[in-house]
């Protein structure tokens, strides 16, 4: 038994020593991202190029869904860990910067390098109590905006305005198998998420918040935008009664929807599915003469505030590489996204046939606010949008309820 105890102690010691060792292997960096599958493939290819011939460095990419990425990173960073680089849409930098989880980047790169980016694409935000805005992420693409997608087999030319779109859509809304249920729709989009409401809000002259970050939801524009979306079904009969993101995608890919409203992340998937894809800016609404205004934002890399020493330096070099001109040209050529670097942006339209239409839509878009209050805005507009579209709630009352709840939620977030 004495021997057994001694052996056990030795084994524990050996294990402990083994755990303490390993400090001389290659450096390991982590990137956490929420990319779409095709973006992930490209990132892997870019990492492979970056690491070619290097035995001193390993980079591990870890994928999360957008919401999981946010919560996982918050928890890991709070505990003093987390990946060196985190990739995501511009609106995640708001909470991360306020919580002190990511570091400002403006002092970490040469001014000439930062000047090579389109200034509108750089995600800057002032922290509470500070007057100066800091740079929180280096983008590898701009846009992330909604646009009108159409199946060119069904719709040869894009509509001039929304009245024409409705007319075309009505011709493609039908019960084709005679079972008494409509199986082909003129227009589909994610009716569950307010991100798809925002373009219509803009077309009626409204927006989600003012310059000071106060919600501006209880407006005639919001009430009219909600009513307009309901009319698409109740009056014009061109959209399904219920339709979420997956449903809209499935209908469009199967050729059962003529028009779809979706963003750049999805286009290549439709082409791969055999859809003869056409893109056009969301057309103006005759009632106001204004174009719908989708939110526009950049996607990019931020630096974990816990990254230290040699890992931090290497992470910055990697960030510069992944947002460099070569990587962005590749992204534009393969996915049709719009680069954030000026030089790459200049040649983007020759790289992919969809870039020109995408750019045309951005001209009518508005920058997505990156302040954390947007979470409250999304959260209160979502149920009201659904209540109007599905439950018959009065749009004006829904707009008033949005505003009241948004103010309460923002106060709660601020601990007031």
């Amino acid at each position, binding site marked *: 038994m004495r021997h057994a*105890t001694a052996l056990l102690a030795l084994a524990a010691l050996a294990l402990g020593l083994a755990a303490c060792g390993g400090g001389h292997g290659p450096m390991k960096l982590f990137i956490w991202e929420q990319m779409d599958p095709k973006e992930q493939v490209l990132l892997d290819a870019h990492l492979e190029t970056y690491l070619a011939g290097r035995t001193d460095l390993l980079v591990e990419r870890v994928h999360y869904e957008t919401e999981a990425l946010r919560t996982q990173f918050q928890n890991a960073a709070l505990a003093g860990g987390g990946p060196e680089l985190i990739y995501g849409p511009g609106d995640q930098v708001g909470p991360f910067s306020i*919580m002190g989880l990511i570091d400002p980047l403006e002092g970490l790169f040469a001014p000439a390098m930062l000047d090579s980016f389109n200034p509108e694409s750089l995600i800057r935000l002032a922290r509470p109590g500070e007057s100066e805005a800091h740079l929180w992420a280096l983008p590898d693409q701009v846009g992330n905006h909604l646009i009108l997608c159409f199946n060119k087999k069904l719709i040869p030319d894009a509509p001039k305005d929304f009245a024409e779109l409705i007319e075309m859509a009505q011709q493609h809304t039908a019960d084709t198998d005679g079972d008494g249920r409509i199986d082909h729709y003129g227009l589909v989009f994610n009716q569950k998420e307010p991100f798809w409401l925002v373009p219509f809000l803009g077309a009626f002259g409204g927006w989600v918040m003012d310059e000071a970050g106060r919600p501006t939801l209880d407006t005639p524009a919001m009430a009219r935008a909600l009513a307009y979306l309901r009319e698409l079904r109740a009056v014009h009969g061109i959209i*399904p009664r*219920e339709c979420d993101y*997956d*449903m809209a995608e499935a209908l469009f890919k199967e050729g059962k929807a003529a028009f779809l409203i979706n963003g750049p992340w999805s286009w290549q998937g439709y082409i791969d599915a055999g859809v003869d894809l056409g893109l056009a800016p969301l057309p103006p609404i005759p009632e106001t003469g204004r174009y719908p205004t989708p939110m526009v934002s950049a996607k990019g890399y931020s630096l974990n505030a816990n990254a230290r020493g040699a890992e931090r330096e290497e992470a910055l070099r990697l960030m510069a590489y992944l947002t460099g001109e070569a990587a962005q040209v590749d992204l534009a050529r393969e996915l049709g996204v719009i680069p954030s670097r000026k030089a790459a942006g200049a040649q983007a339209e020759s790289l992919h046939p969809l870039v020109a239409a995408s750019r045309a839509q951005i001209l009518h878009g508005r920058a997505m606010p990156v302040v*954390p209050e947007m979470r409250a805005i999304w959260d209160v507009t979502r*149920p009201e949008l659904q209540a109007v579209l*599905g439950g018959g709630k009065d749009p004006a009352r829904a707009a008033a309820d949005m505003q009241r709840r948004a103010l309460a939620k923002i106060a709660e977030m601020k601990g007031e």
Partner: protein
Amino acid sequence: MGLPVDPGGVQPARGAALGWRGRERLLALAFVGPAMLVMLGIVLYPFVYNVYLSLTDMGLYTFRHPSLQSPLWKNYAEVLGHRELYVVFVKTVAWTGVNVLFHVAIGLFLAVLLNQPIRGRTLFRVLLILPWAMPQYISALTWKGMFNYEWGVVNHLLQQVGLAAVPWSTDPFWAFLAPLITNIWLGFPFMMIIALGGLQSIPQVVYESASVDGAGSVRRFFSITLPMLKPVLAPAVMLGTIWTFNNLNVIWLVSNGGEPSDKTHILVSYVYKAAFTYYRYGYAAAFSMILFLILFALVWMQTRLGRATEASW
């Protein structure tokens, strides 16, 4: 660390015995120690940290440097003073009660059937365990698709038999019923397996004696089966109650995070939203402590009840 050692080294036999026992204890500690350390790390530390968080103002603007609330119980007062808590609590009790009731009723019914010598019994067993064997995440999302108003198979079937389509995701009542049905489907196999195991341990001779005494099948079920299943069913019901009470996945995924208008929350999804959507960590920690106390009281009562009825088993 053992008894005092004799300074003169006398009583060698007793000393050797103590040494042996001491070494045995040391060895036992070496075996149990790592597990204890892990338990301390993953159970005790998070619990204590949660208690601390519940007393702080940790939130979006105080994430890195939270300070203690003044008064200390401010978060608790806010949680308990919120009318919404009581509405969600009632919903949670209904959610748990209905779920566990159906889990036990369906599970027991199927277990009794599967305990009979029927053809294809093994196949039925496999098929009936499937809901439990499938990952909860996948089942929940599949059910969510099936509840779609226009394209879902549930409404399609309802319409086939002449009933109206149900607004499963937009009406608060039906939107709460949808995850309830999903969770009943997911949960009955567990009770079925437990009950089946219990049934197979009841000696056949007891039933035979009862039959000789003239007891019918209903009487045999209530006088033999049910009482003799109690020892296995009681802990299963307790576990089922805790799991269901704390089941975030199903309600969150099927109702899409509490839709419509946060009308389909149970306590655990409500606290999850407070913490991870609105960054109210201190408030959410206090809320989860109250959840813990509710569950603790429930388990305590059930244990007491179990002991009180133990004599009659």
